[in-house]
């Protein structure tokens, strides 16, 4: 069996300038900080980051934004990171805002091989601009398209050597979704265990989605 366990540096080696990267986490809870830190050190530029939000200063994807590595941010909320506003106004970074449920479903849809889906969310708002509206049973829906990435940076809590992963509490959020929707999936996890140690009923992300496992992800310190 192929060994999926790598060092942080080996794991992010394929990530180059201009990469499209999905990052797990909700206000940085569930973001794989060791992978973000390594990307800051590596200094890759012009990244497209797809994440629920813009993090907040010093945590999560905010670190990449502060280091001016992000060209485009696709997120549902950026209000807790003032740097996002600054770079938007200066024109340095493009921000594409997507309703949170639509963002989650677009990522799931990409992973599940769908060509799109119809959602009532955003009808009659700025979000609908440029999108096809379909009327089903007298109700209007927006056609939203799937969203894929080159890389997914996932934060796991327990991961076996196949990559089967469980998440602790509210760290789950977008992690299981992005793991299905990227060409290469890197899981930074707190604990690596042997195959068979995780109950098959409790696995949340199957190892078939996971290309690379990195140990040493730590709980954030309050």
């Amino acid at each position, binding site marked *: 069996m192929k060994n999926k366990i790598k060092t942080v540096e080996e794991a992010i080696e394929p990530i180059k300038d201009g990469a499209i990267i999905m990052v797990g986490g*909700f206000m940085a809870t569930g973001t794989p900080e060791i992978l973000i830190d390594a990307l800051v050190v590596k200094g890759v530029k012009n990244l497209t980051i797809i994440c629920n939000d813009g993090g907040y200063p010093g945590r999560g994807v905010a670190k990449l934004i502060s280091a001016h590595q992000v060209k485009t941010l696709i997120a*549902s909320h950026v209000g807790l990171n003032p740097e996002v506003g600054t770079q938007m106004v200066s024109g340095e970074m493009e921000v594409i805002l997507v309703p949170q449920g639509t963002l989650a479903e677009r990522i799931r849809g990409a992973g599940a091989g769908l060509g799109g889906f119809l959602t009532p969310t955003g009808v009659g708002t700025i979000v609908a601009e440029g999108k096809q509206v379909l009327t089903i049973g007298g109700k209007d829906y927006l056609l939203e398209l799937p969203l894929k990435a080159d890389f997914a940076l996932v934060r796991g809590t327990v991961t076996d050597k196949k990559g089967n992963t469980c998440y602790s509490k509210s760290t789950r959020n977008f992690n299981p979704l992005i793991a299905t929707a990227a060409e290469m999936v890197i899981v930074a996890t707190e604990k690596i265990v042997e195959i068979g140690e995780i109950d098959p009923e409790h696995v949340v992300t199957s190892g078939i989605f996971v290309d690379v496992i990195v140990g040493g992800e730590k709980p954030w310190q309050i």
Partner: protein
Amino acid sequence: MADIKEIIARRVAKELKDGDVVNLGIGLPTMVANYIPHDYDVTFQSENGFLGLGTAAEKGKEDIDLVNAGAQYVTVKPGAMFFDSATSFGIIRGGHVDATVLGSLQVDQEGNLANWIIPGVMLPGMGGAMDLVVGAKKVIIAMQHTNKGQHKILKRCTLPFTALKVVDMIVTEMAVLEVTEMGLVLTEINPEYTVEQVREATEAPLIISPHLKDMI
């Protein structure tokens, strides 16, 4: 006069029924949880990924992996469940949330809502708000009646919409308004105000309910 936020939160709490599934927005709406009768079984949904949201975590006993949608450390009640964001918004969009309580910048007489952006000034993003208001069975706006005297309850929202025709009820420190096909109906009034004062604080025309009562 009691604290404005408390008045609003107390009144909103009365809208929730035993057995309801409820999503409370950040800020004032979060306070609603404090005023629900203790013998009620109300399940709170946290859109970042769980059902069974409990109280805030005690200082020093925070679980780093457990935050609410406002990134505050919280607890869960027995019988909770964790899930991913697609499942979370499936619950929301699918009509499985009985009520959602949110603040707002503007609401209008058609129940249109504008609470996510002030162009050129504030662009925090809509987060989960657009999904919550189209998905929840009942949408309650909990907010101060005016923004320092400036109207927030309008004939027509001037800020970009969050969603169209979604608001069911507006609860402020002055009054309770219900959104109907006919327009806004004043159903309850804080006895510290007159109907005329409420009218002046509201741009949209008000229909006075024949059953108008005190907001308690």
